[in-house]
C-alpha cells in the first residue's frame, strides 16, 4: 500500500491530517477506528463483523445487524413491530426526539423482539438499538420485552437478550422507572418456568437497564470494551464521584469484580451461545416438528 499523504507527520498533526484526509475520501468507503485511529476499509470492517482488525475495537451494531450475525438465516420472525411510543407526560421535545430516533435508526423503537433459531435451536430474542434515543427504556421497550418473555414462557423457549441502553427514558418520567420493575418481574417468571435466560451486554449498557432485566440472567456475557455500569458519568459527576479507575465501568472491570460470566469477542458469540443453550438442555429443532 502506498504511504498515506500524511506519512511522515507525527502525533497530533498526523492525526489531524489523517482525519481531514478521511473526511475528504468518498463517503462510506473508509472508517477511522476511534480507538487506534487505524483507517479501515468499510467492506473489510463489515466482513470482520465491524471489529477493528488492528485493535479489536468492537463497533456498535444496530439491532438488525446483530440479528443478522446471531440468528440463523431466514429464521427470524419479528414480534410487536407496531408498538410505538406516546408522550404520556406531554414532555417538551419528546415527540421530536422520537421522530429523530426513528430517522436515525430506521426503527419504530429502541428494541427489536422476535423468535428465530440459533444453531437450529429455537429461541426468543430481544435486541436493543442504541441509535434510537440511546436505547432508552420507556413504555414500548418495557412492553415489547415483557411480551416476548411471556411468549417464551408460553412456548417453552429460551430467551437471549442483547442489551445497549443509556437507561430509563427520562421523557416518560416515573413510568419509565416502572419499566425496570415490569421487565424484571417477567424475568422472575421466566426463571420460575425453568427456562434459560442469557444476557449479553453490548456497548453501552448502563443505569436503569443495567439495574433491571439485564442483570438477572442465568449467565451474562459481554462484548470486549463495552461501557457497563450503574451511574452514567454525568449522573455520577452530579453526585460528586470524581476519582474513577482507568477501566471503570467496562466489561473488563465487571469481569474482574465478578459481575459477569465471560467476555466474548463478537466472532465467538454465536458459538458460545449455542454451547450455553445446549448446556441448558435446548435441542435443535427437528425438521419433523
Amino acid at each position: 500500500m502506498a504511504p498515506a499523504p500524511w506519512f511522515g507527520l507525527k502525533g497530533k498533526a498526523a492525526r489531524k491530517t489523517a482525519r481531514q484526509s478521511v473526511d475528504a475520501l468518498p463517503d462510506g468507503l473508509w472508517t477511522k477506528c476511534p480507538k487506534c485511529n487505524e483507517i479501515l476499509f468499510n467492506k473489510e470492517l463489515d466482513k470482520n463483523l465491524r471489529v477493528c482488525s488492528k485493535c479489536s475495537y468492537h463497533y456498535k451494531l444496530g439491532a438488525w445487524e446483530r440479528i443478522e450475525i446471531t440468528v440463523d438465516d431466514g429464521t427470524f420472525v419479528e414480534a410487536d413491530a407496531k408498538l410505538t411510543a406516546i408522550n404520556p407526560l406531554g414532555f417538551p421535545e419528546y415527540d421530536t426526539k422520537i421522530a429523530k430516533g426513528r430517522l436515525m435508526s430506521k426503527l419504530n423503537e429502541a428494541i427489536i423482539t422476535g423468535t428465530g433459531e440459533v444453531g437450529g435451536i429455537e429461541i426468543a430474542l430481544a435486541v436493543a438499538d442504541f441509535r434510537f434515543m440511546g436505547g432508552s427504556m420507556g413504555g414500548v421497550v418495557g412492553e415489547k420485552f415483557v411480551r416476548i418473555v411471556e411468549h417464551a414462557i408460553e412456548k417453552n423457549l429460551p430467551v437471549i437478550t442483547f442489551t445497549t441502553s443509556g437507561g430509563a427514558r427520562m421523557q416518560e418520567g416515573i413510568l419509565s422507572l416502572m419499566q425496570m420493575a415490569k421487565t424484571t418481574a417477567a424475568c422472575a417468571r421466566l426463571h420460575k418456568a425453568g427456562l434459560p435466560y442469557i444476557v449479553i451486554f453490548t456497548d453501552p449498557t448502563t443505569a436503569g437497564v443495567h439495574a433491571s432485566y439485564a442483570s438477572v440472567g442465568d449467565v451474562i456475557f459481554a462484548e470486549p470494551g463495552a461501557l457497563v455500569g450503574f451511574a452514567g458519568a454525568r449522573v455520577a459527576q452530579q453526585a460528586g464521584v470524581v476519582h474513577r479507575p482507568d477501566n471503570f465501568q467496562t466489561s473488563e472491570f465487571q469481569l474482574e469484580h465478578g459481575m459477569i460470566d465471560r467476555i466474548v469477542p463478537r466472532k465467538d458469540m454465536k458459538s458460545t451461545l449455542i454451547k450455553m443453550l445446549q448446556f441448558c438442555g435446548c435441542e435443535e429443532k427437528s425438521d419433523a416438528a
Partner: protein
Amino acid sequence: MPPSEWNVLDFEKPIADLDTQIAEIRRLTMERGEDRSDDIIALEQDRDRLLQEIFSNLKTWDRVLLARHPKRPYTLDYVRIMFDDYTELSGDRLFADDHAMIGGIATLEGRQVMFVGQQKGRDLKDRQYRNFGSAKPEGYRKALRLMKLAEKFKRPVICLVDTPAADCSVGSEERGISEAIARNLMEMSTLETPVICVVLGEGGSGGALGIAVADRVLMLEHAVYSVIPPESCAAILWRDPTKQKEMAEALKITSTDALKLGVIDDIIPEPPGGAHRNVDLAARNVKNALIKHIDELAKLKTTKLLDERYKKFRGMGVYQESTEE
C-alpha cells in the same frame, strides 16, 4: 418551635414569622401574667389561613424542597412513633452493614411485621454515617435478606422509602449496585408475603424502586417519586442544571402525578404545612394507612397476591399499537 433561619424554606418564611410572633406573645404571657389568648388565637388563625393558601399553590419544585426539608421526619422518626416495638437486624452476610438501609422486626398494633427502609442523617456527622440516605449494594442485599426472612415466616413487609438515589461510588460499582437492585426487583416481584411500601420523602429512582416493588405503594402527600433528580435531568437533557424548576414540573413527580399515572395506590395526607410541622400526626396517618392495607392484603391467598402484584407492574407504562405500517 422557634424556627431557626437555616431550616426554613423561602415560602415558609411568612409562616415562620407568625410562629415567632406567637411564641413571643406566649413568652410574654408567661413572664408578665397578661392574658393575651385572644391575640394568640387570632394570630394562629392568620397563620393557618396562610398555610392553607401557600400550600394550595405549591409548585413542584417547592415539593421537592419539602421532600428534602432538613426538618422533615425521617424513617426512624416514623418507626419510633408507629411501632409498639422495634428490634433492628443488621448485615447482608456478604460484605458489610449498610447504615443507609435499616431494617428489623417490629409490631404494628399487635401485628408482627418486617420493616426495611432508607435512613437519612440529621446533622453533618449523622448524615455521613447514613451516607445521605444512599444505600450501597450491601444495603439492598440486607433488605432482601430481611424480606426473605419475613417470607419464610409469613410476616408482611413494610418498606419505607426516603433516598435521593442509590450510592454510585466506585465501591458500589465494584460490588454490583446494579445487580443488587435488579435482584431485589426480581425477588420482590415473587416474594410470597404481602409487601407495602410508603414513599416518605424522596423516592429517588432505582435507589427507591429497589425496595418498592410492593402490593401497595403509597406516598406521603409532599413526597416526590422520580426517575432522576430534576437538576440532573436538566443538566443532561437541557445542559442546564439551573432549569431544575421547569424540569421538576415536566417530570411529573408529585404524589398526585404518581396517583394519576397509576404508579401508586394512594396518597397519605400530611398535616397542614407538611409532616415536619406535626410529626406525630404524620406518623399516625402513615400507621393507619399501613394497618388498613396490611389487613386487606392478609385476606388474599398467596397465589392471588402474587398474580395481582405481577399484573400491577405489568400494566404500568404507555404505548400505542398501530395497525398501519
